[in-house]
């Protein structure tokens, strides 16, 4: 069996008294796709931030492409190398791009960062990337404020791919998009995975999107992994009560929302006691 492209073991993150991530372990195979399913407070975004080095794990190990990255590093050279292993696309298309740069400028800067190529070769690669994500030349030369949410996410995806990563983390990357645009971007992501063999880690609360894009899934609740398995299995036959409740809460034809018993409901959703 080929080396997994990402391995996370015993990951833990404490923010003072609060344990945001508690003993999380999973692996992502090469060209694989893993969903991390959970709601707010589950710790899923914190896990993603630890993997890309934006957060410092309290305990545990993270290994990507065989290299340890359990602690964030300040050295630019190491961060660049890690950038070529794992990249991330964030949720909000309106703040995840530098408002002063066109797509071409952003991509050019990223390419220059990772490769010492001449201007011609850089330009060709920029065109390759914009075509890959389905942006035409006019959109590539536009500033983000002239682009729609879906177009901006495409730029964000292209920017992540400029580093040619093995793993792409999609942190709720389609959650802020309209339904019809979401479908386009999901198709695009499937296309990219077919063409480049990149692995996905999809962080999402949307079970239908999870079903569409991933093969494997783990479910997180209050910092812990409560269920794991093939996506189809986890969604069709959930074992853990939380997963079952999650599944039952998804609107579908004929669905009628039901209130839970008061005792259980009252302690939920407490911001502070």
């Amino acid at each position, binding site marked *: 069996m080929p080396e997994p492209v990402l391995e996370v073991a015993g990951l833990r993150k404490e923010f003072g008294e609060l344990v945001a991530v508690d003993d999380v372990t999973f692996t992502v195979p090469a060209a694989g796709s893993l969903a991390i399913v959970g709601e707010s407070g589950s710790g899923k975004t914190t896990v993603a931030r630890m993997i*890309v*080095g*934006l957060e410092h794990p309290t305990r545990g190990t993270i290994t990507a492409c065989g290299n340890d990255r359990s602690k964030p590093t*300040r050295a*630019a*050279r190491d*961060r*660049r*190398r*890690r*950038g*070529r292993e*794992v*990249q*991330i696309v*964030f*949720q*909000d298309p309106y*703040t*995840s*791009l*530098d*408002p*002063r740069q066109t797509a071409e400028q952003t991509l050019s*800067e*990223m390419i220059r*960062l*990772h490769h010492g190529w001449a201007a011609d070769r850089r330009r060709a690669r920029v065109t390759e990337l914009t075509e890959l994500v389905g942006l*035409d030349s*006019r*959109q590539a030369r*536009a*500033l983000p*404020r*002239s*682009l*729609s949410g879906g177009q901006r996410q495409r730029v*964000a995806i292209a*920017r*992540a791919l400029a*580093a040619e990563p093995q793993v792409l983390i999609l942190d709720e990357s389609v959650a802020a998009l309209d339904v019809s645009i979401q479908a386009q971007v999901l198709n695009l992501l499937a296309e990219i995975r077919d063409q480049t063999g990149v692995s996905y880690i999809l962080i999402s609360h949307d079970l239908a999107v999870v079903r569409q894009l991933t093969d494997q899934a783990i479910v997180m609740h209050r910092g812990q992994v409560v269920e794991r398995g093939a996506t189809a299995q986890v969604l069709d036959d959930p074992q853990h009560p939380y997963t079952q409740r999650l599944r039952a809460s998804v609107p579908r034809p004929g669905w009628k929302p039901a209130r839970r018993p008061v005792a259980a409901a009252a302690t939920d959703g407490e911001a502070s006691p």
Partner: protein
Amino acid sequence: MGATALLNEAEVRPPGTGFLGRLRATGPAGLASAGVIVIATFAAFFGSLLAPYNPVETNLALAWVGPVGGHLLGFDGQGRDVLSRLLAGATTSMLGPLAVVILAMTAGTLLAVVAAWRRGAVDAMISSGLDILFAFPGILLAVLAAAVFGAGLPAAAIALAIAYTPYVARVLRGAALKERGQPYVAALEVQGVSAPGICLRHLVPNMLPLIIAQATIMFGWAMVDLAAISFLGLGVQPPNPDWGVMISENQTGIPQGYPLPALSAGICIVVVVVAFNVLGERLFAEVDR
């Protein structure tokens, strides 16, 4: 598909982007102020050349003579042509504040960005340092500088720059923190762009509207403070033409019934300072929009 092009064309392009767009958006008051500033800048560069008469040659026989012939504003207490002195004085009157602004903005931006980027202990330390600096009013520092280094424009300008730095840093720190927290900065970090690279190429450019607004208003403050310092005799030294110095030199003319020399210098200062203030305020308003 033709319809695709139709759909693409329909993206809305908001007006008021780009430098000229921003300027236009400041309205008639902003544009008028910009006009005044351009004229003053022009005078700063070419004033000495444009001056019709010698600004420094004295002729006591002509002291306090009113406007006559080509001397539109008359003569000052030393018999020098007022208009020529105003034009020649524009240079130090404008360049002094410019130096202050450049120094204070550079230092302030640097401190703000470093504090925002590193956060935590570094931010706390810088903020404490700035709090101490806040305690020193500009003019007081200028007096101290004059006492230590002797009177003159350079010492005064540096003293003022030090006094203004904490104001700049405080205003910009908030904006820097906000940019720092944006996902695009996180994306750049994940890409592996160096910290100085992110700060210089991304953070600061995105703060530019605020920086420009702050610099513009600060120019007005510096001009007033420097004129006051020169008026006190601690800045530009007579007989150099400088608007602040001119007020000082010619104030004796006012009770004697010859207000024009002092007044005209004062009006120049006021007009230019108001122009900078108005434009600066308009630019600030644009930033918040």
